[in-house]
């Protein structure tokens, strides 16, 4: 697989039950790419799920938002495109991690810490998240 790009896709509704399918999608990608550092996969999964959670929680009309994930495993990075049919909105990127006692508001900050690139656009009536994590950049303190 070295030097090639493998693509994995998932389509469905942005509802809580479908979060497991997102985990399974990444599980499939990881299983077919044993060369990936498990921590890279774990962090990517953590960040992607936070963005997916965001769509599930805030996408309207609730229960009717359709989404498509495309995950690409490349020699030097993993990337994901998430397109959803929810209402237009502007994500609040660039915000600081909330204080230690906050019970919410960490999801997007976590994703921004993990992804090397996170871009949002509105294309053809779809919200489009593009997320990239370069491989081999696991901070020393997170090494298993």
């Amino acid at each position, binding site marked *: 697989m070295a030097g090639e790009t493998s693509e994995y896709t998932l389509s469905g509704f942005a509802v*809580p*039950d479908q*979060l*497991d399918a997102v*985990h399974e999608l990444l599980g499939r990608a990881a299983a077919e790419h044993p060369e990936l550092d*498990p*921590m890279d996969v*774990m*962090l990517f*999964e*953590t960040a992607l*799920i*936070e963005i997916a*959670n965001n769509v*599930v*929680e805030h996408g309207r009309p609730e229960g009717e938002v359709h989404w498509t994930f495309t995950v690409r495993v490349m020699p030097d990075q993993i990337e994901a495109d998430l397109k959803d049919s929810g209402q237009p909105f502007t994500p609040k990127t660039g915000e600081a*991690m909330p204080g*230690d*006692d*906050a*019970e*919410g*508001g*960490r*999801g997007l*900050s*976590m994703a921004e*810490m*993990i992804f090397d690139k996170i871009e949002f656009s509105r294309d053809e009536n779809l919200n489009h998240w593009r997320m990239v994590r370069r491989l081999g950049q696991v901070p020393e*303190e*997170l090494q*298993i």
Partner: protein
Amino acid sequence: MTYTENDNGTYVVFVPEGKFNLVTAPLMKDRIDELLKDGKANVVVDLHAVDFIDSSGLGALIGGLKGARQQGGDLRIADAADQVRAVLKLTNLDRILTPFATVEEATNGW
């Protein structure tokens, strides 16, 4: 997600299993709140069977910690898997939710 509990009179060991996420965190938080309401203010969350946590799961643990401390108790976590420990470190929440290696270590002094 399912959970088990073991109440030894001094503290409760709460053992969730599966994904501690958007779907399951509210249920877990409700159960921890019930324990606190029943006066069980020392709680160890044994995370050995949790294979994934998201920001909702973290929020539930922080909420439980605050509730326990308000009652003069504490909520501690033990035996967390790699993903859970990585997320705690990434968010710096390991400073207030110290991951203990074992339930025994977590309950030291209770």
